[in-house]
């Protein structure tokens, strides 16, 4: 049985933990709103980009001169996995669920005899993957000390990825991130960004393809549009990730706060019981002492 003083200290410490988790939850809630707004504001751009690219790609896909970013290198031997996680922990299963998805993919690819390369964005993912797959790492993008992700950050990552693609370092690139569904649900997602995946619209194949005029010309437009599309996908993944992180942290901190509350209640009951037990014991001692006289 812990002493009264121990119990009292314990209760105090859980109380201050609860204060911290409560504060973190509120901070996460405020940040979540901003992150969610940013993610929503960026959606029209990604959608328009996807639509334009889709139209272009359907027309250009079969031509001999289609750029590698669209058609692929003709092989799928080397895979680059861009694993995007948070810079900080204390957000429930957010980081580990991305890492788990990435690990499954790495094992699958390895089993199929492919070469795997890993680029991490965010400190947590690097820490978790470094232990097992340290030799597969080719780089890390540090986003710590950054308040809000901007398009510039996506450009940095995209430049890194595209530079390596141009240098022939890999054939297929996939990004791993958490898609934000709701505060309590974030879905770890893998999305292939190189070569570009063109979504087949229902019925689009039936409708006559649109024939565009190009200014300056088709190749030049594609050559500029494709890298921008990659950047745009990375950017939206970053934003989804940021919103998911705050959502995950908010719900994790919410349950931590609730747990702390329950623990305080239990400890308080225990504290009261032992205090009463001590009083009873003292009374018994006094009474039995008096009776003995």
């Amino acid at each position, binding site marked *: 049985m812990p002493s009264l003083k121990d119990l009292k200290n314990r209760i105090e410490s859980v109380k201050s933990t609860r204060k911290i988790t409560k504060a973190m939850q509120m901070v996460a809630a405020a940040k979540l709103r901003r992150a969610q707004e*940013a993610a929503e*504001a*960026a959606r*029209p*751009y990604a959608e*328009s*980009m996807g*639509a*334009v690219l889709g*139209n*272009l790609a359907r027309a250009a896909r079969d031509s001999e001169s289609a750029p590698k970013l669209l058609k692929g290198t003709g092989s799928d031997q080397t895979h680059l996995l861009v694993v995007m996680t948070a810079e900080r922990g204390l957000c429930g299963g957010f980081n580990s669920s991305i890492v788990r998805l990435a690990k499954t993919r790495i094992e699958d690819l390895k089993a199929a005899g492919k070469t795997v390369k890993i680029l991490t964005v965010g400190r947590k993912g690097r820490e978790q993957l470094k232990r097992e797959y340290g030799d597969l790492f080719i780089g890390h993008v540090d986003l710590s000390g950054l308040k809000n992700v*901007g*398009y510039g950050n*996506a450009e940095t990552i995209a430049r890194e990825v595209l530079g390596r693609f141009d240098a022939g370092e890999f054939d297929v690139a996939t990004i791993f991130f958490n898609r934000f569904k709701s505060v309590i649900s974030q879905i770890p997602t893998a999305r292939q960004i190189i070569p570009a995946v063109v979504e087949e619209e229902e019925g689009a194949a039936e409708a006559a393809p*649109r*024939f*565009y*005029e*190009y*200014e*300056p010309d088709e190749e*030049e*437009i594609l050559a*500029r*549009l494709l890298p*921008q599309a990659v950047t*745009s996908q990375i*950017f939206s993944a970053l934003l989804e990730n940021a919103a998911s992180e705050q959502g995950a942290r908010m719900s994790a901190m919410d349950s931590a706060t609730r747990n702390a509350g329950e623990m305080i209640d239990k400890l308080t009951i225990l504290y009261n019981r032992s205090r009463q037990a001590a009083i009873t014991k003292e009374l018994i001692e006094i009474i039995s002492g008096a009776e003995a006289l």
Partner: protein
Amino acid sequence: MADSFAFDLVAPERRLASFPAKSVQIPGAEGDFTALPDHMPLISSLRPGVVEAEGVDGTRAFVVIQGFAEITPEGVTIIAERAFPREEVGRAEIEALLKEAQEKAEACPPEEKDVAEKLVADIAHLLEMMV
């Protein structure tokens, strides 16, 4: 012939405009042009310049730095890498962009130098027009 069409201007961080327009003036890579309803399908890259959209209730102007315009008979979608409402940017902002582009041009590898320097020249031109 319809007298208006859908006009959308999106930047990576937000949607700047979405309204029916009667005509849109676009700074294409190979010269300015104006899109009217029922324009033939066209995809053009943009140079830094001013997009002017004539809506039902007046004209709105935007400064765009690089991007693309997709024009179909039904509408115009401008996907800009950077875009600002015209009234929000002054000389100072453009000068900052110019400086950024110049720094980029100096840092970039030789095979991209032409493109980067063209961007600098275009922004400088835009700056002159802003006066």
